[in-house]
C-alpha cells in the first residue's frame, strides 16, 4: 500500500480565551492518499476550516496545535520553523479560500501574481514563468489568456476569479490542495463548473485535495472519500458511496436524510432536533448523544473513537463489538 501523502494523527487545536481553554478540534485523525479527494463536510463551526488551516500552517493566534502530529510524505510538518513551513506552502501544499475577490491583491495584475508565485518556488526566468502562467490560465479555462494576463482582479467575474485562484494555487505544482469552501461564494450555475474544473485538474496533475465544505452536493460530485465532522471531531469517515448511501453514524444518517431529492420516494425531510453544541458546552461522552435517536447508556459517559463499521468507520457505540444496549 502506498504511503499516505498526508497523515493527520490525533490533532487537537485549542484556543485560550478568557473563559478558559476552548478545544475547537479534538483528536482528529485521517489520511489522504496521493491523488485522492477527501471531502470534509460538516456544519459551520465543526472545525473543518481550522483543521485545514493547521495543516498548511496558517492557524491564526491565539489558536494553536496543542497535540497531535501532521505528516507529509511521512515527515512531520507541524513543528517546522517559519521559513521551512513557508517553503512547503505553495510548493507542496496549496490552498484555496472561499472568496475569490478577497483572495487576490487588487493592486497587482493576475499575471504579476502568477509569475511571482511561480518564480518563488521554481527557478524559471521571467519569460519562462510568464509562458507557464499563460499555460496555467488556459488550463483553468480563461479565454484569451495571453491578453488577459495583464488584467487586474476586478476586471474578472466571480467564476473567472476563482479559476485564477485555482491557477495560482496550482502554479508551483503542489501535491495537496486544501480547498476551503471553494464554491460557496459563487453563483449556483458557476459552482458545478468550478468543481468539475477542480476535479479534472487534480486528476490531470495527480494532486490530492482536501475539500472542505458544508455542501453535500459538491462532495457527492467530487470526493473519493468523505469525513464528517461534528463539534470538532470526525464522526464518520469512509468511501463516498458508503457514506452517502449507507451512512452509519446517526448524525450522518440525519444529514443524508435531510437532503431534498428530485428522485426517489423521499416524502419527509429528516430533521435532527436541537443544534450542534457550542464549543464551551460540549456534552460528556459522545458529543452527539443529546440529539441522537438511538442513544443508550454508554453514549452518555464514554466518548467513542472511530470504530470499523463495514468499509467506513464511525465514532458510535452502536458499532462496538458486542454490547448494543
Amino acid at each position, binding site marked *: 500500500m502506498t504511503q499516505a501523502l498526508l497523515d493527520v494523527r490525533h490533532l487537537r487545536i485549542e484556543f485560550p480565551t478568557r473563559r478558559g481553554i476552548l478545544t475547537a478540534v479534538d483528536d482528529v485523525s485521517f489520511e489522504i492518499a496521493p491523488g485522492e479527494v477527501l471531502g470534509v463536510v460538516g456544519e459551520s463551526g465543526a472545525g473543518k476550516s481550522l483543521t485545514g488551516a493547521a495543516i*498548511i500552517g*496558517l492557524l491564526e493566534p491565539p489558536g494553536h496545535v496543542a497535540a497531535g502530529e501532521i505528516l507529509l510524505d511521512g515527515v512531520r510538518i507541524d513543528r517546522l520553523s517559519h521559513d521551512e513551513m*513557508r*517553503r*512547503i*506552502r*505553495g*510548493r507542496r501544499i*496549496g*490552498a484555496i*479560500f472561499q*472568496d475569490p475577490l*478577497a*483572495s*487576490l*491583491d*487588487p*493592486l*497587482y*495584475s493576475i499575471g504579476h501574481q502568477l509569475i*511571482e*508565485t511561480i518564480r*518563488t*518556488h521554481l527557478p524559471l526566468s521571467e519569460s519562462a514563468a510568464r509562458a507557464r502562467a499563460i499555460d496555467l490560465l488556459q488550463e483553468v479555462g*480563461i*479565454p484569451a489568456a495571453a491578453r*488577459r494576463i495583464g*488584467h*487586474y482582479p*476586478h*476586471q*474578472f*467575474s466571480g*467564476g*473567472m476569479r476563482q479559476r485564477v*485562484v485555482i491557477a*495560482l*494555487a496550482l*502554479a*508551483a505544482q503542489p501535491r495537496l490542495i486544501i480547498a476551503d469552501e471553494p464554491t460557496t461564494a459563487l453563483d449556483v450555475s458557476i459552482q458545478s463548473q468550478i468543481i468539475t474544473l477542480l476535479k479534472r485538474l487534480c486528476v490531470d496533475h495527480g494532486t490530492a485535495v482536501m475539500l472542505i465544505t458544508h455542501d453535500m452536493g459538491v462532495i457527492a460530485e467530487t470526493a473519493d472519500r468523505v469525513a464528517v465532522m461534528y463539534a470538532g471531531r470526525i464522526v464518520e469517515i469512509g468511501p463516498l458511496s458508503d457514506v452517502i448511501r449507507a451512512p452509519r453514524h446517526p448524525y450522518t444518517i440525519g444529514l443524508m436524510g435531510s437532503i431534498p431529492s428530485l428522485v426517489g420516494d423521499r416524502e419527509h425531510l429528516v430533521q435532527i432536533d436541537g443544534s450542534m453544541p457550542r464549543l464551551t458546552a460540549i456534552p460528556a461522552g459522545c458529543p452527539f448523544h443529546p440529539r441522537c435517536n438511538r442513544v443508550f447508556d454508554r453514549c452518555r459517559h464514554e466518548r467513542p473513537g472511530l470504530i470499523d463499521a463495514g468499509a467506513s468507520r464511525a465514532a458510535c457505540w452502536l458499532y462496538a463489538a458486542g454490547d448494543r444496549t
Partner: protein
Amino acid sequence: MPAFIIQRVLQAIVVMLVVALVAFSLFQYVGDPVQLMMGQFATPEDRIRLTHELGLDQPFWVQFYHFIVNAVHGQFGVSLRIGKPVSVLLAQRIPATLELSFCAALLALIVGIPAGVHAGLRPNSWLARTALSLSLLGVSLPTFLIGILLILVFAVELGWLPAFGRGEVVSLGWWSTGLLTRSGLRSLILPTITLGLFQLTLIMRLVRSEMLEVLRTDYIKFARARGLTDRAVNFGHALKNTLVPVITITGLQLGSIIAFSIITEQVFQWPGMGLLFIQAVSYVDIPVMAAYLCLIAIVFVTINLIVDLLYYVVDPRLRIDRPGSTGH
C-alpha cells in the same frame, strides 16, 4: 479617465467659489468696503468716487464678480493694521511659512511612515510599543505646548538653539530662504519639530493601523498560502495596499500643516503668513483675513486635487472601467 479629472476640477472650482463668497461676504457685511480698500484717510470725494467705481450701488452678484476679478489679480485691498497692500504683505511672508511647512512635512513623512510600518509588522516589539505610547502623548500635546517646552529646554535652559525669528535669510529674487545660512537652519530646527510632531504621530498611528488591517485580509492569507517570501508579502503586497488609503489622509494632513503653522509661528514669532493672520483676527483686519482665506483655500484645493490624482494613478480599480461584460 478624463471624466474623473474633470469632475474633480469642477468640484475644486466650486469650492473656490464658495470660499470666495464667504470672503466676499466678510468684505461686504462686516466693515466698510470702501474704507477697507482705501484705508482710513480717504476723503469724502474719494469715497464717493470709489463707491461708484467699486460698483457698490450695483447688485450683489455684479459686485461679487468684481471681487473675484480683483482677487484673481491679487487685489485684496489695504491692511487696516499695517496700511500696506495685502498682496505685498502676503508675498513677503509666504516663503517663511512654506519653508517651515515643507520641512515639517518632510520630518513627519520620513519618520512617521517607517515607524508606522515597523509597528504594524512587529506590533509586539518594544520599539513598536514605545512608539505607540509616545504617539499617544504626541496626540495629547497641543502644538503650542510642544513649542513652549522645546523653547524652555533648548533655548532658555540649554541655550543651544534660538527661540524666535528666522535667523539670517538669503534673498533669491522674490523668495527669501533661511536654508542657506547657518543661523537660518538653526532657527528652523525647533519650529520644524514643533510643527511636524503632531503630524508625525498621526501618520505613524495611521500607517500602523492600516497595516494591521491589511495584514488580516484574505489576499495576504492567500499570498502566505502560496509560500511567498515574507518580504514579498509584507512589502510587496501589504505595504502597497496600506499606502493607498494613507496617501489621501496624509495629503490632507500635510495641507493642515500650513494651517497649524499659524500656531507655531505665534510661539516662535516666525514671520510667516500665519502670524499675519492671527494678528489680523485679533485686530479684525478684514482684508488680510479675506486674502488669507482665499490663499489657504487655493492651497487646500490644489493639494486635494493632487491627492485625488495620485489615488487615481496608484489604484488600478479606479483607472479601468468596471467589467461586467468582459469574460465569464
